[in-house]
């Protein structure tokens, strides 16, 4: 199996890859129970899709995994480590990176600066002494070339089009060399050509060993891409399995049609 080396991304070897396990997570806001006993697995090196009708709790689950929310009950395991309640930055240091449902880039910074913000290393020296190291600029350039944004490298990120900003967000997340990528509705607002490109990028990265958890509404996009699909409804998992199985599951059909 020949893995194409995407320049700027080092392949993830088997030993480093870890799975994500969400176990019995509850999360409520005021009186609203967003997640109830939510349990599913994200297998290492696979592409897992998280789908469900509006309000089913997908983004809440995402936020619990990435540290933006603390689960009321239950746990999130990264490999055999319990990461629930960790701060988001600490989770990023475990090489778990995420994008946001509403694309967030630093609009007033240049594209290059956006690329350099994500931190791989902790430690005082890394924090205070390093500017942009030589090879970091190289990696940034290669990643930008990967997503086709190299020519904008010195422009304000705010001047990019919506789709370009989404790609920038993805490329910047890759700078932290994640072994797990959490993508929140990556195809939202993109035209079909861009969506195909995006699917291509995800496949290439997955071939290098990057694990994916993707929240999506676009069924076509997700069913083509995913190895595993998890269906959320009213904050609980109602189905998990291969795309074909899930698509045929009557519980899933009812959840979508019933709405």
């Amino acid at each position: 199996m020949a893995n194409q080396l995407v320049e700027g991304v080092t392949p993830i070897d088997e030993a480093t890859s870890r799975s994500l396990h969400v176990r019995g997570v509850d999360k409520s806001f005021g009186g609203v129970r967003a997640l109830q006993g939510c349990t599913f697995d994200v297998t290492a090196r696979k592409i897992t899709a998280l789908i469900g009708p509006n309000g089913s709790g997908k983004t809440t689950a995402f936020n619990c995994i990435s540290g933006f929310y603390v689960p009321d009950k239950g746990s999130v395991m990264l490999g055999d480590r319990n990461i629930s309640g960790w701060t988001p930055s600490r989770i990023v240091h475990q090489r778990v990176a995420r994008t946001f449902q509403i694309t967030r880039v630093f609009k007033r910074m240049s594209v290059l600066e956006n690329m350099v913000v994500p931190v791989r290393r902790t430690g005082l020296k890394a924090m205070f002494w390093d500017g942009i190291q030589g090879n970091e600029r190289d990696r940034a350039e290669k990643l930008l070339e990967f997503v086709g944004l190299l020519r904008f490298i010195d422009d304000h990120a705010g001047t990019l089009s919506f789709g370009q900003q989404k790609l920038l967000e993805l490329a910047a997340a890759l700078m932290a060399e994640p072994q797990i990528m959490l993508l929140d509705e990556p195809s939202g607002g993109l035209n079909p050509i861009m969506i195909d490109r995006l699917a291509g990028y995800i496949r290439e990265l997955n071939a290098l060993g990057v694990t994916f958890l993707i929240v999506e509404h676009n069924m076509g996009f997700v069913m083509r891409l995913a190895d595993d699909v998890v269906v959320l409804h009213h904050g609980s998992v109602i189905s998990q399995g291969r795309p074909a199985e899930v698509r045929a599951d009557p519980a899933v059909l009812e959840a979508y049609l019933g709405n």
Partner: protein
Amino acid sequence: MLLIQGLVLGILVGGMYALMASGLTLIFGVMRLINIAHAAVIIFASYLSWQLFIGLGVDPLLSIVILVVVFFIAGALLQKFVLSALIDKDLSLALLATLGVANVLEGSEGAFWTSSFHSINTGYAARTYQFGEIFVPEIRIITFAASVILLAGLYVLLTHSNLGRAIRATTQNRGVAQLVGVNVNRITMIAFGIGIAVAAAAGPLMGMYYPFYPNSHWGWIGKLMAIVVLGGLGSFRGTLLAALILGIAEQVAILYIPANWAAMVFFVFLFAVLIVRPQGFFGHVARESL
């Protein structure tokens, strides 16, 4: 018995604290802005009330009516011409603007009335009632009663009027409020005006009991902020509850330690809340909200 004294006085003074802090909470609710000038407005209103009392013989309780109108207009104008533009751009600029206003008020007070202590001494309300072993100064009862009336009025406004509904909608979710047809800019202006007006109403009440001077707003704003944080930023009932609790805590503390140290109680609570439960009683959780 001593404790009951502290409790009673605490409730009486807590009512006034609640009035003073309620405007701050209202403003934070609609604008997500901490109005650093809030206590300065209260003090400025006290000065004006004093001036009306000394110069024209206007009873401070009566002056509340005049001050509420004047300050509502002034507040709305400030919001419209200065703050609204800043809120959209950068909240920290609006914060700095309120800091500026606080200093303008303080400086003006010193320039017009000198920096000596002032207080509004009406002839009446000098008695102290005795209930069993509990001593209650009449002035405390009066200011409490006035505060309760004003707070009740504010409460009714917020819960039973269309304006109040619009304000609450804007506080909860500005974007959605706009979608359902609320003119959020106008509502924000009005709400800010109301917040300032309520602060002004508290001025004469405060001035009848506490001596004031230009710099005293710094002491008060610290207390008001502690109340608002303890109650939960933006929560009206949180403010009421926190004001009562802190009022009681302070009055109980005064029984055992000197009065100026008793004020430190506010800050003890402030730091404790921020460490243990940053959202206060009824506030929203402080971590990332996407």
